[in-house]
């Protein structure tokens, strides 16, 4: 395979970012239901074979989160979680672990992380600094948290295992034959 130049790397990352963004909006009216299946999240398996997908997913997630009702919070925290999960997925791929492990980081980080900041932030009261921080932990409600973890995690699992893995297998075949 020809060694990819830096520019090629960036352009491909940018395409993955816009794919994430476009798919998020394209499937928006289709992905309603008790358990939301975010089709775009199936792309989170990509860093397993393409390291440039880390930047792609991070930027794509950022662009899509501009429209989140949580706006700035999702833009920073949600994007950061995506970045870390993508890094781990890449590591899994690098050490050529089973591809069935690839969707684990995005599922874990999104389920536990996103549910955490949503519940924690909505429970914050008008306290300042350290006191507010302590308050979040003291008054942390476990029941809604785990409900959040469950719904987000399930939706994530459906899209990554249901759709992400078939995509990954299909792409792997083409990578082997140098098609992409």
């Amino acid at each position: 395979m020809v060694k990819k130049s830096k520019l090629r790397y960036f352009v491909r990352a940018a395409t993955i970012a816009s794919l994430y963004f476009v798919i998020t909006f394209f499937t928006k009216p289709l992905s309603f239901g008790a358990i939301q299946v975010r089709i775009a999240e199936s792309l989170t398996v990509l860093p397993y074979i393409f390291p440039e997908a880390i930047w792609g997913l991070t930027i794509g997630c950022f662009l899509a989160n501009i429209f989140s009702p949580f706006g700035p919070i999702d833009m920073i925290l949600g994007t950061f979680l995506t970045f870390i999960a993508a890094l781990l997925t890449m590591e899994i791929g690098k050490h050529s672990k089973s591809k069935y492990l690839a969707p684990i980081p995005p599922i874990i980080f999104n389920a536990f992380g996103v549910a955490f900041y949503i519940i924690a932030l909505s429970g914050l009261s008008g306290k300042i600094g350290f006191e507010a921080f302590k308050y979040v932990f003291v008054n942390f409600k476990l029941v809604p948290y785990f409900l959040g973890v469950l719904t987000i995690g399930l939706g994530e699992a459906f899209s990554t295992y249901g759709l992400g893995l078939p995509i990954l297998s299909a792409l792997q075949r083409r990578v082997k034959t140098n098609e992409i």
Partner: protein
Amino acid sequence: MKKGSILGQYQPTNSLVHQLDSRLKITLIFYIVIILFFVRDFNGYLILLLFAFILVLLSRVSLISSFSAFRPILFLLLFTIFFQMFFTPGEVVFKLYFIKISKEGLTLSLYIALRLILLSTFTFILTSTTSTVEIAEGFQMLISPLKFLKFPSDDIALMISISLQFVPILFEEADRIMKAQVSRGAEFNKGNPIRRARSFLPLLLPLLLSSFDRADQLANAMEARGFVVGAKRTSYKERRFRKLDYYFTFIFISVSIVALSVGRFI
């Protein structure tokens, strides 16, 4: 498919709020969201709510659309209110068999509701008065000082602008592939969640492959024209702060200070 309706809530009315510098708008919205979590008094929230309402009126976007901004958080809103209301211990004001509503629970859930509504309203003001491209550009400029911390902000800025270029192209492509697959009998959004997710494979895989092709073409074209990664770039439009931007900053900060001091000093 109408592109305008999908691409967020941007409504081009060219009002005063629209004309503000996008960097400033992003910073101010971030600032007000942080402030939101430090307001101590109910009246403070009312001040912010009034302020948000005035901003929505000033930006001349449709009022109905600003209410639709709550729709995605409605479930979360009801859910947290429900939990705070019934499971917060304190002075009982309402009792029906085993259901107890405490005074503390009521006030807490009111605060949470107000805060979530304010959060989504301010975000709505940002996204309805600033196009995605402007927001992304604003961010590129905001992160550029991070260069000194070895943060690859130039590279990220490059990737953001390339991906924004790709968005309309890929939208069309996705639409085309979807129609082609539907005409062959593909069904989206049917069956159980796994089935539903899987049904997108005939859309996603061709889309991925064709977009990788496009990426290679673009990279070839850029290389052929002598694009160098990391070279200093100039831009067609230079942005400068205007008087209007300074006025708004002043108003924003004073309102936030008033909202913060209610219940503390006043």
